[in-house]
C-alpha cells in the first residue's frame, strides 16, 4: 500500500473549544509526531476550528471489523428500556 519512502499517515482529532470532545476530522502525512501536530494545526484549523489537536499514527488504530457489525451493534436494538422515553409517567411528574 504505502510506498517505502512515504511519510507515515496520521489521523487528526480536533477539539473545537474547551468542554467539547476531540472529533476525528481527517488525516495527513508527517515524518514525526511533532511535525504531525504542527501540520494538523496548519491543515485542519485554518478557520479557528481548533483549541486542541490529537494526532495518532493511522497504523496504530484498531478498528472493529465491518463484517462483525451485526453481531456487535444489533443486540443493543431491543434494549428499549435503557431509554428514558420507554417510561410513561403521569404528566405532573413527566419532566423527571
Amino acid at each position, binding site marked *: 500500500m504505502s510506498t517505502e519512502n512515504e*511519510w507515515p499517515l496520521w489521523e487528526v482529532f480536533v477539539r473545537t473549544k474547551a468542554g467539547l470532545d476531540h472529533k476525528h476530522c481527517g488525516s*495527513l*502525512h*508527517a*515524518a*514525526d509526531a*511533532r*511535525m504531525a501536530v*504542527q*501540520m494538523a494545526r*496548519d*491543515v485542519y484549523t*485554518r478557520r479557528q476550528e481548533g483549541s486542541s489537536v490529537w494526532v495518532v499514527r493511522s497504523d496504530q488504530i484498531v478498528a472493529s471489523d465491518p463484517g462483525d457489525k451485526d453481531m456487535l451493534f444489533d443486540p443493543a436494538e431491543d434494549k428499549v428500556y435503557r431509554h428514558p422515553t420507554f417510561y410513561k409517567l403521569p404528566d405532573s411528574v413527566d419532566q423527571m
Partner: protein
Amino acid sequence: MQASIQIPATPELDYLLRLGDTCLISGQRLGEWCGHGPILEEDIALSNMALDLIGQSRALLTLAGQKSGKGFDEDQLAFLRDEGAYRNPTLAELPRGDFAFTILRNLVLSTWLKLIWERLRDSRDAELAAIAGKALKEARYHQQHAADWAVRLGDGTEESRRRCEAALAQIAPYLPELFEDDTVDAAAEASGLGPAWSSLREPWLAEMGEVLGEAGLALPESTKFRSTGKVGRHSEHMGYLLAEMQYLQRAYPGGAW
C-alpha cells in the same frame, strides 16, 4: 504609470518601516512557495506563515502611514515607494533559495522577530504594543516550525546537512545588519518606542545556538561585509522583487482593486 510617493525621513518612521518592511518582504518571499512546496502539508504551513507576515506588515505599514503625516495607507506604502525607501535588512529580500535556505532564514528572522516583538509589547506607543502582542504568538510558532525543521535537516541526510551548511554560509554575511545600531535605534530607545537592535544580539545568539547545536550546525564566522538594506541601499535582488510586486499598482494609475 503611477508615480512614487515620498516619505518624510524621521527616525520613528524609519524604525517602524524597518520592521514593517521586514515582514512585508519576508512574506513576499515565503508566498513564492505556495504551490511549490516539498510536500502538500508543508506547502500549506509555509503559506500560513506568509499570511501571518503579510498581516503583520499591514498593521505596521498602516501605523507608519498614520505617523507619516501624509495620510498614506498600507498599500501606498507597500507598492508605491522607490526601492531606496524600503527599509528591510537585506537578508529578507534574498531569493527564496532551496528549502534549507528558506528554513534557516526563517529561523534567523523568526527568532529575531520574536525577540523584538517581546520587547515591543512594552513600547510607549500603545498601538505598536498591541501589534506586538498579537505578532509575538505568530513569531513563536514560526520559530518553532523553523527550529524543528533545522534539526531534521541538520541531522537527516548528508545532502540535507550539506544544503544547511551552504545556506548558513550564504546567510552569515547579512547577520551583522540585524544587530548594529545607528541613529534610528538610538532615537527609538531614547523615546521608548522600541529596543535598539543591538540589544537583541545576545538573546538571539543564545537561542540560535541552542537550535543549531541540536541540529549539529554552527554559524560561520562573521565577515567584514556589511549589508545596508535598512538604510535603503539594497541588493540587486530587491529591484526584481519590487518590479513584480508593484507591477499592477504602477501599470494601472488610479485603479480600484
